[in-house]
């Protein structure tokens, strides 16, 4: 499930590249006093992900922009939508925006047999932990610290890491009796097209900034069965890879 907020710029502004932390703050503020508030510091995937303010680029007063917030929890989105409607100012760092309209969207990859493409709207955050490095023979002297995935590590550790991550989300958000992505035969995606990798300074918590390596992708899929459909739809609701609470790994269906 998704909420689409249609925005307009309240003043001329350059695009604030350090938006992640600030936008996250606004969404958590919308959840203050709700059942979801206590998940804030839990360290687990928060159960939501969001796009950047799009289209990207500097804005002039009155320009129209959009923001999508996705979650498998309907009531989480309802709280966000209610807050967006009650408080129309959306100030994301140096970008002063106004929320003109809030609407709900349903997304679905389609029934078994459907082919399509999912594309990242924001960068994917993938860290390779020790068990990934051992399995794929990656040595970079980081010891116990995770390694950011880079193209030279090859595609296999990337797919293993995002499938492990998707399994973790499935364990959290799907009924126990249904098999998750690593519990079924077959991959999440048929094709992985790497569009680019880039490094970004990211404020992970207040006052703590880290340089992270992100990647943008185009994923091809053909829905195998109902389980696969659920796995892909969960990624549309939760995001691909880690740090979804910072708006990383937000994905869209681009070609059905």
């Amino acid at each position, binding site marked *: *499930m998704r909420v689409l907020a249609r925005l307009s710029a309240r003043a001329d502004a350059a695009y604030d590249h350090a938006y992640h932390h600030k936008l996250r703050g606004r969404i958590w503020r919308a959840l203050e006093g709700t059942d979801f508030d206590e998940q804030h510091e839990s360290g687990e995937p928060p159960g939501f992900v969001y796009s950047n303010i799009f289209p990207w680029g500097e804005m002039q007063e009155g320009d129209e922009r959009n923001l999508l917030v996705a979650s498998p929890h*309907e*009531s989480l989105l309802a709280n966000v*939508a209610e807050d967006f409607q009650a408080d129309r100012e959306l100030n994301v760092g140096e970008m002063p925006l106004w929320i003109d*309209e*809030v609407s*709900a969207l349903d997304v679905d990859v389609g029934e*078994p*047999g459907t082919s399509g493409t999912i594309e990242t709207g924001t960068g994917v955050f993938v860290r390779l932990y020790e068990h990934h490095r051992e399995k794929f023979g990656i040595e970079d002297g980081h010891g116990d610290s995770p390694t950011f995935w880079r193209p030279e590590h090859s595609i296999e550790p990337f797919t293993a890491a995002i499938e492990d991550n998707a399994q973790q989300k499935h364990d959290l958000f799907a*009924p126990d009796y249904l098999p998750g992505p690593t519990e079924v035969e077959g991959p999440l995606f048929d094709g992985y097209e790497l569009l680019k990798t880039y490094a970004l300074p990211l404020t992970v918590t207040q006052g703590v900034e880290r340089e992270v390596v992100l990647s943008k992708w185009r994923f091809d899929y053909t829905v195998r069965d109902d389980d696969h459909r659920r796995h892909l739809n969960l990624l549309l609701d939760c995001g691909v890879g880690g740090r979804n609470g910072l708006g990383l790994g937000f994905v869209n269906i681009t070609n059905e």
Partner: protein
Amino acid sequence: MAADTDTTTLENRSEIVFLYDAEDCNPNGNPLSANDKPRVDETTGQAVVTDVRLKRYVRDQLDDDELGIYIRNPSKAPYEDVPDRDGLFKRVTELEEDDVEDMSGSDAAEAFLNNAADVRYFGATCSFSSEFQDALGDDFPGQFIGPVQFEHGRSMHTVTTKTESKQLSTVVASEAGDEQGTFATDNRLQYALVKFHGVVNENAAQDTLLSAEDVERLDALLWRSLKNQTLTRSKMGHQPRLYLRAEYATDDYHHGGLDDGIERADADETDGAEYRNITDVTLAVDDLVAALAGDAEEGHLETLHVVVDDHITVSIDGATGGPEFLLKELEEAVGADRVNRVDVYA
């Protein structure tokens, strides 16, 4: 428009049993109640789902499959125009009043039925303006009786309701000025395993041109409609679990009450209010298997069309098992050559 659908005359009657469940959602709201409460039989505590709700899923799926329907869903985009009664006919047939004037009423009816799959299945009452009715001619029927009839579905157990104060659809809908929407209460059922019973009448099929091909399509249609038409916010949480269509060889025969042969294995011990998902339920299907075996032995049963979900558990003669167990028991009871395991995505 000339009739162009290759219809294979329907010769056999069928009886349908269809089970689906609804987890943490509202399977059928009652618009006459405050906040669209789920329909619940106050005496038995069972959830009730009307045949109209089930047929809406099917109509929406037919529409998505671009088969053409008469009674479209006004809430589904991108319908911008709301045609009048004459317009509905013209839209579905792509015929104008001049075309209709040149046709006999029965030819117009045939064109209508060939282009409105939902009317072939479920019938419709056709009421037009007097001018358009004159153009259609006296022999255009005012009403088509649907050959596919379902009874109201009921949960197989007592249901538990839950109430939440926020629901995305009401929150967003409130923006259009309906301030009450923000404060609307969202009523849901924790869990309901709903059982439907239906009959496809081959005699009534003659009047709506329902074909054998249409009935074969129904096997996948019901299943797919529950998968695809329940992804919106208020209906998210539905899953089809078991579909059986007993196709009979004997004229004018159907067993009747095949659905009565499916019960809860623990029905004597609990009212089922504590059920939360399909893994909590075991279906006792002894009477169903016995009824089908009897029909097969007496030569009534031609084919049993079956779809079984991966997660159901059944008990037969004291033994329990999953979908493969059920299918093997059915094959043993009626003969393997009589069981058609339907692939809904073929």
